[in-house]
């Protein structure tokens, strides 16, 4: 039996149409985008600039506001460490506000800054993973230089209200960064009306290749200042040196355009499947909790806790089904989820949690198999525990 993959929040397979767009750049169109003195280089540079336009249009940005990176982790590091390191903001203050449920690639740079003497406010969330906006507004001081709140959480899928957060930040004159890794290409984003100043995104979560992402940095009202993390060569307007990953960038452009074109239909289809999965499991089993806000969340994600069952045991019982017991980036460490911890879940509920994340290639037939398999496995595991 082939594996049923329901771990799209960890990574996605490359869409064949994306691969088709990339393939010429793996063979004849192999130029270095900085070699603008010859045909190969120009061809590569033109392809890169076209993607800058494609990606910018998906979020309502100007192409000059897009900096290509090696992925969302680098984008998040660049946004947070780069803004904190910019002399313009250093003169204003050293306070950063973020949320306890952010991805590690936001939390770790913030902790790094905290060790260097910056003040960091770690906002909590309620039991459904939602942020209290009044708490956010109250946390802003005249020393605050940056607010970083993710759009969609990777473990529970909960969406934060970017437009409202952006409005608060704008009113208080504070930069607003959002980690859009899980939402870019899946949820509509408009940096203008949402008031976003910096946005991180990744290609490999949207059926593009690994090793490529971007950071959006607003150029006007305000013009975001950012210190580079990588020096040498002055690529990407001096913000990110290093030979551009042209095939990867081309793949991200194709992936972003496809997601944007198919977003509404794809989201509706995936939501139906996700709801079928959730209802199928919950109606057949007692003691199942949905973690995170039931409505305000990504259409593709459901994070379930099974009372009396260990999530890892459940995964091991279903070797033909790829799901996740925590976020991929920390699951190697086998630490209990800090995201669910922030929701106030007790240890048993955290241990019993499994994330199902659906995607473009998920079928109704697969959902049927998964429901049956989960129900059977949970019953069997519970029976062993009792006996």
């Amino acid at each position: 039996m082939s594996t049923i993959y329901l771990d799209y929040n960890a990574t996605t397979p490359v869409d064949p149409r994306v691969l088709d767009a990339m393939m010429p750049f793996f063979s004849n169109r192999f130029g270095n985008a900085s070699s603008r003195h010859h045909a190969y280089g120009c061809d590569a540079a033109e392809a890169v600039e076209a993607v800058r336009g494609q990606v910018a249009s998906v979020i309502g940005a100007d192409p000059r506001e897009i900096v290509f990176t090696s992925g969302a982790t680098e984008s998040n590091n660049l946004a947070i460490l780069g803004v904190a390191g910019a002399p313009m903001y250093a003169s204003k203050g050293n306070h950063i506000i973020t949320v306890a449920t952010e991805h590690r690639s936001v939390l770790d740079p913030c902790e790094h800054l905290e060790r260097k003497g910056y003040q960091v406010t770690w906002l909590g969330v309620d039991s459904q993973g939602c942020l209290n906006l009044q708490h956010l507004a109250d946390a802003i001081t005249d020393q605050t230089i940056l607010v970083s709140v993710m759009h969609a959480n990777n473990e529970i899928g909960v969406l934060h209200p970017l437009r409202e957060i952006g409005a608060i930040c704008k009113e208080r004159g504070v930069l607003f960064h959002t980690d859009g890794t899980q939402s870019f290409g899946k949820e509509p984003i408009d940096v203008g009306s949402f008031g976003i100043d910096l946005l991180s995104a990744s290609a490999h979560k949207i059926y593009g290749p690994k090793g490529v992402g971007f950071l959006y940095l607003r150029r006007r009202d305000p013009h975001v200042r950012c210190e580079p993390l990588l020096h040498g060569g002055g690529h990407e307007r001096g913000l990110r040196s290093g030979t551009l990953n042209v095939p990867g960038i081309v793949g991200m452009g194709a992936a972003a355009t496809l997601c944007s074109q198919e977003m509404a239909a794809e989201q509706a289809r995936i939501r139906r499947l996700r709801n079928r999965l959730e209802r199928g499991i919950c109606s057949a089993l007692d003691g199942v909790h949905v973690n995170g806000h039931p409505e305000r969340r990504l259409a593709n994600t459901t994070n379930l806790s099974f009372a009396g069952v260990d999530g890892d045991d459940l995964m091991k019982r279903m070797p033909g089904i790829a799901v996740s017991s925590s976020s991929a980036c920390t699951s190697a460490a086998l630490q209990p989820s800090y995201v669910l911890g922030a929701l106030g879940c007790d240890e048993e509920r955290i241990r019993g949690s499994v994330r199902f994340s659906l995607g473009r290639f998920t079928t109704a037939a697969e959902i049927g198999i998964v429901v049956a398999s989960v129900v059977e496995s949970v019953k069997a595991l519970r029976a062993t525990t009792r006996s």
Partner: protein
Amino acid sequence: MIYLDNASTTRLRPEARAAMQAAAFGNPSSIHAAGRAARKLVEDARETIAESYGGDPKGLVFTSCATEADNLAVLGVAEALRARGNHVIASAVEHPAVLEACAALSRIGYEISRAPVDEDGKIDLSVLERLVTPRTILISVMTGNNEVGTLQPIEAVAEIARARKIPFHTDAAQAAGKIPFRFTADLVTLSAHKMHGPRGAGALWIRPGTPIVPRQVGGGHEFELRAGTENVEAIAGFAEAVRAAEAERSEVVPLMERLRALLEEGLRAAAPMRVNGHPTERLPHILNVTFPGVDGEAMVVALDAEGMCVSSGSACASQSLIPSHVLKAMGRGDEETRASVRFSLGRDTTEEDIGAAVAAVPKLVARLRAISPVVRP
């Protein structure tokens, strides 16, 4: 189209492409089968690459490119050893990724010394030794230069550094796969796309025990030295490119040297020129020449119009049109620097390519000399 700009980037070799296409798509941090398959690819690649150069695989950290690896080496070691000292030595002909990382250090209170080079582009070991102070915490000298190809005496530098317990970094992005090479430095930068591997993968090999702190954090990947989902496909292609390059090196490199000699002789016979770089201790794929009285930029553009890709400097700097810091460090004046062109060969360069260059270049030299404002008798 004739491509003689392989020091800038290379065509992906079929074996590497096949390895990438066969790669598992999972996230190596996921514990299910798809994730484990991806993890295995990454770990196998780590072993292949490290062992190809006689290094401990646990010291190999994958990055997105050589620039990132250079930055991690320079900035990561400098920060880790800040309590011990604040002095960094780099050769004057380093890649901008090293030099600009050093410049960033100098803005935050570090002292940077540039080890000078002679007219062939080689560092002077006795000068390097004299630059060392008790506050020196890093020496960075590249293995082979990207613009002129000159090889540096890295074994001797490694000895100097080892005797004083100073970490030694070498950027081997151009040299790996082209010369017999082992990890003798404490930190070594590698790049996949310079050796017919894919874009998007580089590596920094770090001798276990070398003090270093990460630059990119969040998730604890790569021994907590480089956070971020591994670029599995590119890493698989990288390992295959290393394996294949080393397997064919004894066959391909002599051929490359023969073709380069053919190019050099052919050009010399037809046009007055000077070869930049060491006459013998030089990377096999690079030929950097000065055509007196010719504007190198104009030459590159004219060659492009004839379907031939070369470079007037390193690709990384070619956007900026700043005269080469490498030729300058070798004592060349602005005029000579501007009159230089870099030809760089790859494993797929043919005798026909060289013949075409030998036929095209001298005619252009004559034409450009005739219109050049700087030409002198």
